[in-house]
């Protein structure tokens, strides 16, 4: 269980000639137990915001708290440790590592800092794979399975750590409609039934029905923030 609070989070990028603001000060709070969809046109700053939340990118301004602890500007190693312990990521592409089996790709999420992986964890990997409809794929190399299955493996890789927060960037955009629905269904269940904080970035209208909360962004600002259908007051700092 974790909650995330953003206070005036902004980000500038240097585009070679000048500093450009791609994220204007944003105030948001994310709660566990719901699936938040971050929507908006391409270039509106969704990925930038998700990267800041995910501690892989630092904000240029503002502060951020994770379960009451300030996580703005953490040292690189501390941020890494926090990502390892608290975060699960699902990217647009599955980003599985060639040369490692499905199982080893998943275990890497636990062992990347050198921790010993006890034997029982392999049992958990098998259960997790089965629950994601991937029974008997543990020993296969990633290139042997379909795109939809790979994306589910990447969800397994995020889930094996039992993370409080799961961040997904366009997880369905590389999938066909059917696989997209399957993946969203899984993420929805993870958020609600397992009380995790799940944020899904997407500009695909087909994922909106899965949202408990829909945040719309445009030109680096939040333009709408609605909870499960009914509109809420805008939470935007101008």
């Amino acid at each position, binding site marked *: 269980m974790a909650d995330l609070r953003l206070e005036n989070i902004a980000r500038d990028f240097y585009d070679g000639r000048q500093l450009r603001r791609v994220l204007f000060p944003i105030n948001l709070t994310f709660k566990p137990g719901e699936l938040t969809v971050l929507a908006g046109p391409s270039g509106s700053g969704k990925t930038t915001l998700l990267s800041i939340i995910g501690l892989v990118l630092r904000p240029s301004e503002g502060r951020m708290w994770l379960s009451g602890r300030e996580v703005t500007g953490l040292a690189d190693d501390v941020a*890494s440790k*926090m990502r390892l*312990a608290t975060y699960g990521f699902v990217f647009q592409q599955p980003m599985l590592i060639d040369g490692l089996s499905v199982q080893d790709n998943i275990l890497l999420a636990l062992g*990347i800092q050198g921790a010993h992986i006890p034997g029982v964890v392999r049992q958990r990997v098998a259960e997790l794979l089965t629950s994601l409809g991937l029974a008997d794929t543990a020993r296969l190399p990633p290139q042997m399975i379909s795109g939809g299955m790979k994306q589910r493996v990447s969800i397994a890789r995020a889930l094996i750590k039992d993370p409080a927060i799961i961040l997904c960037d366009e997880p369905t955009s590389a999938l066909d409609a059917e696989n997209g629905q399957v993946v969203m269904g899984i993420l929805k269940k993870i958020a609600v039934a397992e009380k995790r904080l799940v944020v899904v970035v997407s500009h695909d209208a087909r994922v909106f029905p899965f949202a408990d909360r829909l945040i719309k962004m445009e030109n680096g600002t939040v333009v709408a923030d609605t909870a499960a259908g009914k509109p809420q007051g805008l939470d935007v700092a101008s």
Partner: protein
Amino acid sequence: MRSTVAWRLLRHDRSATAGALLGVVAIVFLVGQQLSILFGLLQYMSVLVDHSGADVWITSASVRNVDAVNLIPGQYLERVMGLPEVAWAAPILFGNGLMRTADDSFEAVRLVGLHRPRLQGGPWALAQGRVQALLDLESAAVDRLDLKKFAHPALGSLTEINGKRVRLTAITEGARAFQGTLVFLPLDQVRDMAQTPPGRYSAILVGFQPRADQQTALARLRALLPECSVLTTAELSRRTQLYYLTNTGIGGSFGFSTTIAVLIGIVIITLTMYASVLQRTRDFAVMRALGGRRRDIAVIVLCQAVIVGGIGIFLGLFLLAALLNATRGSDIPSFLPAVVPPLLAGITLLVSLLGSLVALRKALQADPASVFH
């Protein structure tokens, strides 16, 4: 997990791994091969000294190498024998000559005159015949590997050196020198052939009493003969080797070729490891996003370097051993002191790590934020 990942990635990226392995094997094999020849030649340089069986060599003053000694008076022999620490002392006389070959040509030879009956400093291993044959004034011994130079004379055949009749009565094994083709003869013959004045020798070999204190004995000898060089066998051997190493092109030539071999190896390792990391940049970014620290990425890359280094060293040493085995007993000088293989392995491992540094730098730049794009 990290070392497993390192190993799996290497196995998957076969061509890059094979390239890096080639670099390591090249270093171990080429450098090892060069060193074996160098040490083989070093052995040649001091072969007479190393196998003399003496504790001490007494020569003319300020000796630089055993082949450039002035004659010293034979009276020193009695003075040396007078010391209680000395068990025996025997003179040796060097000279140069021309030996008639079996096909009526001539070969320049280095004459080694041995004092009878001890024959100290003489042949230590024989391929044919007996050492005692050299007690006969007309006898001579040459090395098995030099027989070709003499057009394969038969054992017992007659020939001449500097106009003196000699009979080939023994064939030595491993008595090859850097400075010339060795022929062992009785000392009186060498005096005749090289026309050196009577009662003078090139060196006096000394053996100490088994219970004598080496340091004291050495000091007493030096005090007794201040006008001579009194060196232990090991000292003279080292001095001779160092002389040829530094005063001929050998040291520089071997230094140059081994350096080039190491550099080429480093370049191969660097290029192939860099190329393979470049292909894996995205994977390293993923590992960083999953919670890997820079140090974890470093562990994986360095593990790869160690694995490639380890396997390459093993293969290289194996090939080297095969080569040395195949050329053993041939006229290619080759010798590897026992310390060389482990040293070579250590240095090569270091070189592999060095070669991975550029790749490491690249891998550490992998940006976890990049996986979101």
